[in-house]
């Protein structure tokens, strides 16, 4: 995730303006504006770079990006588009500065994740005053106006206990093979159950999940926002934890974005291997097949490819193998499983309208399968899909595949 100005220039030159990115960019699909597609963004970044005064069209184009990597995966010239956009955002923050809300949030990340934990916890106690509960435990909507957050945002009910709290009661299993577990912020604070499920599955497979409290945010959001310096600090603190535990080679995560970010770190300890949970399970497929045996999920399920897993890490077959293993013919593909859900880190919060339009196409595709559960290997996508199910009054719920696997393994 480091790209020097010289290579940016070279990357920009690689674009032949073929337009193939138009076929896959979710933002272009909704806006139909050439400035919004990768080709247009690159054109703007190429012609206006060392300019102090950034025209509104430039700022709008650079701002309207989900960093979903769809264009990048589809580009026959291999232009590193998301790197260029992150660099452009960095350029912009240097000129104009970071949006104040992001600035505050990133300061929290940087000044130790634990203070973020305290804020989230306070939020979980106060949430009932500000937010209104939705049916089916699906989430909350706002009661009053809040600055910077769209009134239509659905947020998950914040759990009273985060993953760190819950792990205090965990019985250690030192006899098993150690493996590092990078939970990521979303799992840690919003969906701790995914973390517990993942640890449980690892133990069934013979792994003892090591969960250093000192792991920080992976840095994806700060990179995407162009906050290079915070991103560097976060990377450094995570690298320190990885180096301190360098005797453990495998690092597993259940979050597509964290996995994508970590795999791109420079200077990972030698032999250190970052794995998405589905990749790890696939490696140990024989054992897992034995563990699952003849048990099968009886509900119809489908799968949404998280962008940062499918395009960011090119992991698409492993999650499908897993879902076929646990659901057999009850696993059905949706139309366009690879299309972005519109979450894009903080994009869904700051650009509600477009994000919702993208989400609507996704939930339509989910609805069309008749599935009862929509799975996705990313807590961010799960949040967004949950919001989508509420908005479109769909009958399915969004889950992480690992949750389904854990439930199956716990069942008799």
């Amino acid at each position: 995730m480091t790209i020097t100005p010289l290579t940016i220039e070279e990357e920009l030159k690689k674009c032949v303006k073929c337009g193939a990115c138009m076929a896959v960019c979710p933002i272009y699909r909704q806006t139909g504006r050439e400035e919004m597609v990768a080709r247009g963004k690159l054109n703007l970044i190429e012609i206006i770079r060392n300019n102090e005064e950034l025209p509104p069209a430039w700022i709008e184009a650079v701002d309207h990006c989900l960093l979903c990597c769809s264009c990048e995966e589809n580009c026959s010239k291999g232009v590193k588009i998301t790197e260029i956009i992150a660099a452009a955002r960095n350029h912009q923050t240097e000129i104009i500065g970071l949006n104040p809300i992001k600035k505050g949030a990133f300061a929290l990340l940087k000044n130790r994740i634990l203070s973020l934990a305290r804020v989230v916890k306070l939020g979980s106690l106060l949430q009932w005053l500000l937010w209104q509960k939705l049916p089916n435990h699906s989430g909350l909507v706002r009661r009053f106006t809040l600055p910077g957050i769209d009134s239509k945002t659905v947020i998950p009910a914040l759990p009273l206990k985060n993953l760190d709290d819950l792990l205090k009661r965990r019985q250690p299993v030192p006899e098993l093979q150690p493996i590092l577990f990078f939970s990521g912020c979303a799992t840690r604070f919003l969906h701790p159950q995914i973390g517990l499920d993942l640890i449980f599955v690892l133990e069934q497979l013979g792994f003892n999940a090591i969960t250093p409290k000192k792991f920080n945010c992976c840095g994806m959001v700060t990179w995407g926002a162009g906050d290079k310096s915070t991103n560097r600090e976060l990377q450094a603190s995570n690298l320190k934890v990885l180096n301190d535990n360098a005797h453990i080679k495998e690092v597993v995560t259940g979050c597509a974005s964290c996995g994508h970010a970590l795999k791109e770190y420079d200077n990972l300890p030698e032999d250190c291997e970052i794995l998405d949970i589905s990749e790890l399970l696939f490696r140990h497929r024989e054992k897992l097949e034995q563990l699952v045996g003849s048990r099968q999920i009886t509900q119809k399920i489908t799968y949404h490819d998280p962008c940062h897993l499918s395009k960011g890490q090119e992991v698409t077959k492993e999650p499908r193998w897993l879902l076929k293993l646990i659901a057999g013919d009850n696993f059905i593909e949706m139309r366009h499983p690879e299309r972005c859900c519109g979450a894009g880190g903080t994009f869904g919060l700051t650009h509600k309208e477009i994000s919702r339009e993208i989400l609507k196409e996704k939930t339509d595709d989910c609805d069309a399968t008749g599935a009862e559960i929509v799975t996705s290997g990313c807590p961010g996508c799960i949040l967004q899909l949950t919001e989508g199910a509420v908005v479109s009054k769909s009958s399915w719920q969004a889950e992480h595949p690992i949750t389904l696997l854990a439930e199956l393994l716990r069942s008799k």
Partner: protein
Amino acid sequence: MTEPTNPLRTQIVTRLLALGFSKEQIVETKAARSCYGYDATRQNIEPLLALLPENELQVKTILKLATEKGLKIFPRGAGSGMSGGSIPSHDGIIVSLTKMKRILEIDEENMIATVEPGVITGELQEVVSRLGLFYPPDPASLAFSTIGGNVTENAGGPRAVKYGVTGNFVMGLEAYLVNGEKIKCGNKCIKSVSGYDLTSLLVGSEGTLAIITKILLKLLPAPEAVKTSLLAFKSMTGAAHAVNAMLKHQINPSTIEFLDHHSINAVRSALPFTLPDETDTVLLVEIDGPKALVESQSLKLNELFKDEALLLIAARDENEREQLWLARRKLSPAIANIAPHKINEDIAVPLGAIPEVISRLESLSQEINLPIVCFGHAGDGNIHVNVMLDKNDPDQAERGQKAINKIFSITLELGGTLSGEHGIGNTKSAYFDKEWGPVTIATMQAIKKAFDPDNRLNPGKIFPT
């Protein structure tokens, strides 16, 4: 990037806003306009304005206003053109048809789709396939180019050998002349000979005659099965004989793509199967239709060539089919490794002339001392000729230019044409009079004049300036 205000631009914008256009439909600032000044040829000229009409009445409004002011109009689809067809001038208005993207009707009884010009070709194909129908034209850009652009460039792809190109599917059109008046041509009838065939005239007109706003497209029933095979041959002549033999033996492939030995060398290492060392030419053959017929034709293909071909692989499933197609799909990125730049032309020749063209291009390659990589559609004579070079080296750049001239001469001598797919646009207009005599060109120009007397619609395209 702050630019002085242009009173004309301001005037037009004010008028359009008053006439009901929204701000999102008007691309006004210099930076944003620059995103409507390019296509896949990498020229970039930002227009005076870019407008995104949402319906035909808005197209009409724009044209009337432009006529009043005497302004030039440049139609634009997805801007994926390979010959500069949509490139504007600084004093012209881009009319982007991308927001007119409704599929208006799919008439299943008559098997005809009525669409707006901004519909993406691949999306139409997806929608009709859900109804068991098939829209065959398959330019490689189908996932992002528009039907309107396909019609005006008469785009085609590998399936042309069996099904033809876009023009073979256009039953009728509605279009606006540059003065804002509307013409209608064609209809849903299979036989239709009332008056001049303006539909065919507008097909391939590269946006120089009228702005197309509605298109009637013929559909077919979706083929039940498709079978892909890869055949390797010792020589281009051997491969060309094979193509001829297939057609003579009533094997009717939907696709016959070929790769020459430069192409093969470029992709060889990326392939999941091994090609014999002596391979000079590879053919990728696809047969589609009713299951039984596909099976019997594939067997026949195997019988015919099992001795002659160095290698014959028939895909047994979708996965294997994908693997065979890799040879073709990996090609563009792979040949990019040969040299930093390429000049590519899409000439077409009569089928019988393919081996001759390839051998003369081989000699030319030696003469100019630059690699020339050829691949393309062996079933229809359309060849992608790529001169590989480093444009930053002035000497190579000059030799490259010389090569283009020679390539066109060779093509025309063998009864071929400058462009099989991409059109003339502004990148090949300088060579146009090599292909056509003065009387023919004057006749074409007279037609242009009848449609657009003041030369305000997409000027600077097709004809030498």
